[in-house]
């Protein structure tokens, strides 16, 4: 049944409005920064884009399955170290990381090769961990992801000959420009969107809504979760590679509870049940954090410099998160995606009905 007001283009637009809007905004911001931004602003934007990759990475699993993951940062660390081993400090490696296999110890690899292999390694690690963990559900799964985070932290902190323990690996090539970060953020967002609208993603969302009912309808909890977990691990790996090559250093303790908390705060504030929520959370929390970081550094009013004591930023962040959890459990977006404004929404509903009728 055709409808005069609906073109295929419009129906595509309305169906994928959220992801198109997010992508357009990101591209627009990076263009602005490219044209007018100072180096400082560029760094802030790169940081925010990397955070989008992180939070979307966690969202792919947590948002779709409803199981809060405290351990996704683990796969960032795995990828960050992997890319560090491949690209960092050729002269120093044999001394500082003598336990590496010689293929890594005595050679360096181009950054794109290392990025690919590192992301694959993170995905593989997630898959292997997931084979075990995804048999669990609910709180038990959350707890075991936390255990994974601790296991990796203990292992890498003490594996002196390979990871340099808790010391930082320095001297990674820093090649992350706003455009590369944008590309990664777009990949992450599109991956998340495609997954959540795929048959697998919808099945997984069904298990989120009601585990028992979904299982009774024949949805395999295990495979749906495992696929999401692996994809999430790959995106986290991407975030790890970006972080490593943005900062130029890798140290295990920057992939631990603080980062986990920040990422979860973003996810909670925006709303962990929708992709739009994940992205909004990053933007809102990054803005708050950045604003208070500046206030802590000091604002000059005439002759006097007013500054907040260091640490206010963290207090405000935790406070915001608690307030959101109390009064708006589903986050700012309330679990909804961005949709077309009302005027076009009529078109949207018609197009949906026409599709239904066509079937």
């Amino acid at each position, binding site marked *: 049944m055709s409808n005069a007001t609906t073109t295929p283009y419009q129906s595509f637009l309305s169906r994928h409005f959220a992801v198109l809007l997010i992508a357009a905004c990101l591209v627009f911001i990076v263009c602005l920064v490219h044209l007018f931004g100072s180096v400082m602003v560029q760094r802030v934007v790169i940081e925010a884009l990397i955070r989008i990759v992180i939070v979307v990475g966690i969202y792919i699993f947590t948002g779709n399955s409803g199981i809060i993951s405290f351990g996704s940062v683990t796969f960032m660390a795995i990828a960050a170290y992997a890319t560090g081993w491949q690209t960092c400090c050729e002269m120093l490696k044999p001394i500082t990381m003598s336990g590496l296999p010689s293929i890594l110890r005595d050679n360096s690899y181009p950054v794109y090769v290392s990025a690919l292999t590192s992301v694959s390694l993170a995905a593989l690690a997630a898959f292997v961990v997931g084979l075990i963990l995804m048999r*669990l559900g609910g*709180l038990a799964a959350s707890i075991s992801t936390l255990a994974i985070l601790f296991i990796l932290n203990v292992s890498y902190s003490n594996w002196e000959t390979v990871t340099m323990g808790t010391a930082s690996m320095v001297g990674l090539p820093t090649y992350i420009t706003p455009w590369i970060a944008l590309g990664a953020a777009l990949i992450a967002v599109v991956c998340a969107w495609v997954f959540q609208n795929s048959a697998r993603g919808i099945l997984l969302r069904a298990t989120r809504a009601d585990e*028992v009912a979904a299982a009774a309808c024949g949805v395999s909890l295990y495979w749906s979760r495992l696929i999401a977990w692996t994809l999430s691990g790959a995106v986290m790996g991407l975030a790890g590679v970006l972080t490593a090559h943005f900062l130029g250093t890798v140290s295990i303790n920057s992939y631990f509870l603080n980062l986990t908390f920040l990422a979860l705060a973003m996810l*909670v504030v925006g709303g962990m049940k929708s992709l739009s929520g994940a992205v909004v959370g990053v933007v809102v929390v990054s803005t708050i954090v950045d604003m208070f970081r500046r206030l802590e550094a000091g604002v000059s009013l005439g002759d006097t410099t007013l500054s907040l004591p260091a*640490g206010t930023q963290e207090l405000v962040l935790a*406070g915001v998160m608690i307030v959101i959890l109390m009064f708006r459990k589903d986050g700012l977006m309330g679990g909804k995606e961005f949709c077309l404004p009302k005027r076009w929404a009529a078109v949207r509903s018609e197009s949906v009905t026409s599709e239904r009728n066509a079937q």
Partner: protein
Amino acid sequence: MQNLIQIIVDAVALGSLYALVSLSIGLVFGVMRLINFAQADYITIGAYALVVPTASVSPALLLGALPFAFMAGGVVVVVVVLALLTERLAFRPMRGSDPATLLVSSFAVSYFLQHLVMLIHSGRPKSVGIGNSLSAAVEFWGIRVPGTQLLTMGVALVMLVAMVFFLKKTPMGIQMRAAAENFQMARLMGVKANRVIATAFAISGIMAAAVSLLLVVQTGTLDIRMGLMPVIFAFFATVIGGMGSLPGAALGGFIVGFVTVGLQAFLPPDLRAFRDAFVFMLVIGFLLFRPQGLIVTSAARERV
């Protein structure tokens, strides 16, 4: 033989410390399905209450300057008030959320408190000399037991006995057990939800205060993350013992203590550094093969 006994003493001492922490986590989980990570910060703040807030590395004593009874009493009061405040302001409005959301919110509260301490006391580790006289070792039949270990075991024993007495013999304790068994039904029978939960928090505060004093006496240092690792281990101990079961929590605490000390003693030297990773793997193993824990309560069974 002596060596073995020494190891067992170490294990009991560490286990009783973990048991204290895991009991307080288990108690609160029992009545409101909240895994309270802020327990770590109750411990930290209890310890920091001993000193005057300054940026100095060896600060002047505040509560720590008082005679022992007043010092202990003061720390208990501080931590209990803190525990009640977090319950009233942060956790009460979230009552009834699912456990995973509550876990996230307790992370947020913990993060808040940790940075509050950092704001007031600065982030640097500090040294305090309290209970130095206790670190002298006492010798029994050729086995040297550090005084701090004896103290830990003694305190844990007293508190465990007091807990059992409280839970079995007092009206409040019986109400609390009823609430842990089936909160809804207990309320219908006239158990006051607010009072039971607040009492659970207060008791968890008392235990946190005891743990913070024990940690300070043992290590002589203050650190804003000093409560974290004991609480993480104790939390995993409650998982092993059975979430919501108090005997299970205590048992889990001792198991984690024994496993930790045992691994330290018997692992090959180059694997010893990874000791804690093995403990965490044990937890995942438990979650896979016995997710309800060693001691199962009716509350742990999910109903459909």
